[in-house]
């Protein structure tokens, strides 16, 4: 009898929790147009709109949290939030520690940006954000890697001459180049890195991963994801 009561209580408790479950979405808030803090002080960008739509489709209550890029994976696994939705490329190394949903952003090009067209991107100093696939690529390319905690600082480093070039996602760099009045320019070839951008989840959280996977697939199928991609990254962006 006692066991039955406990079981009933546990069931009632979990049922109550399931109804009110809040999923905390962790992002960096410094990587426009993927995610950034807008002038109202709220999380904004492609991933904000995407995340809200995914939560609506999966019938989850979601809450946005920002976290430093450096510690974004450790804080996910220790349970401070439930997903990473921060322009994080799916790579094998990360997949060992966390799980990824299917990609919601196709494998995209990374590019070099410099002040001069003849900047030495093979043997010079190249800036990249810490713990990104681009930083890994620069380290292997033979150039000297200069790491910064935020993407904004990598561009500042090129502007004040500390680095010869910056290597990052092309979609992130594009607005900076376009709005620099010719000061900044793309150099070298574009390089394809990673398996696209996906949501990161704890490996023990298979249920939540399933929900988001279904929602992403649904958005791919009915074309809403492509509309979102066009809205935030322009008409030439690769689509699904």
């Amino acid at each position, binding site marked *: 009898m006692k066991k039955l009561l406990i079981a009933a209580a546990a069931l009632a408790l979990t049922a109550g929790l399931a109804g009110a479950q*809040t999923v905390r979405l962790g992002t960096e808030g410094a990587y426009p147009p993927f995610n950034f803090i807008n*002038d109202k002080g709220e999380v904004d960008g492609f991933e904000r709109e995407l995340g809200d739509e995914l939560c609506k489709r999966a019938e989850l209550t979601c809450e946005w949290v920002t976290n430093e890029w450096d510690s974004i994976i450790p804080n996910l696994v220790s*349970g401070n939030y439930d997903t990473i939705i921060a322009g994080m490329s799916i790579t094998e190394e990360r997949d060992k520690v966390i799980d990824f949903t299917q990609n919601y952003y196709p494998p995209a090009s990374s590019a070099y940006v410099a002040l001069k067209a003849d900047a030495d991107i093979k043997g010079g100093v190249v800036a990249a954000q810490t713990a990104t696939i681009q930083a890994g690529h620069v380290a292997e390319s033979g150039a000297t890697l200069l790491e910064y905690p935020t993407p*904004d600082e990598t561009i500042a480093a090129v502007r004040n001459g500390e680095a010869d070039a910056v290597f990052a996602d092309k979609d992130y760099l594009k607005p900076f180049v376009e709005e620099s009045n010719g000061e900044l320019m793309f150099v070298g070839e574009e390089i394809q890195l990673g398996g696209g951008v996906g949501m990161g989840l704890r490996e023990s959280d298979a249920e939540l991963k399933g929900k988001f996977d279904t929602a992403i697939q649904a958005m791919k199928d009915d074309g809403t994801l492509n509309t979102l991609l066009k809205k935030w990254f322009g008409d030439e962006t690769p689509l699904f």
Partner: protein
Amino acid sequence: MFASCADPSTLEGLSWLLCYLTSGKHILFYISIGTVLTLLVITAPAALAFGFGGAMAARSQFAPLRWIGKAYTSMVRGVPDIIFFLFVPIALDQLFEFIRHKAKCPDWDQPIWQGSDFVVCPAAKLPLSTSEQWVHETYGFFMAVLAFAIVFGAFAANVIYGAMNAVPRAQMETAEAYGMSHRQAFRRILVPQMWVYALPGLSNLWMILIKATPLLFVLGVRDIVYWARELGGSKTSAYEYPHPDWRLYYFLALLAFYLIMTSLSERVLRRISARLSKGQATMAGEQQRKAAA
């Protein structure tokens, strides 16, 4: 904030700047000054309490208590602050959640550590994942206060320990001669007199505490340094107020803020020092007596 700021792209010059400086993000920046001040106001007495407790423990005649007091001060003082700040909030948070997990979910059959994941039952989460964002932020803030209090408490403990030993032995002997118990002498003679010896060390700690507040940023609390960096970074047209790299100006404002804070404290501390020296058998106290006579 103002109706005229609805479309910033049409604004120019001073009105643009006015709208820019009153944007929601800037308001958060101004509020974070309050966060820093609140941290100081709560941490200073908390660290003093830790310090007083640590010093009393280190002086205790009961050996295990003395060992705890000594171990606390020497361990915390020997570890770099930033490592402690990274360690304490994560470790304490997991400890609290572990205890709550054991208490609230005895039927839970999955392991808590699954590979690198730390998984407790939803009811044991701290704060609950259903609670509002401000609850999470307040919880993070108090973890930060705790980390600051533990670290600065250890330094304060050593200062207070030294100050207690600096009170002339003759004072305590006189108290004993008057028939006061050990506890009475401690409360009536030792504690009131030790502050004047402790003050130089404590005022140093206060200054260091003011300058250590940017460590809040390491703990995920958005303090003024976080906002200065975020606001100062160059902004493309994805933002309502695009601008180039303005970090220099924001950091200059921070510089002014910290200088004002420290110079104000210096003034206050000088007053407290004068007040404490009154009637004391120290050089400063003697000078005051002569000046009055």
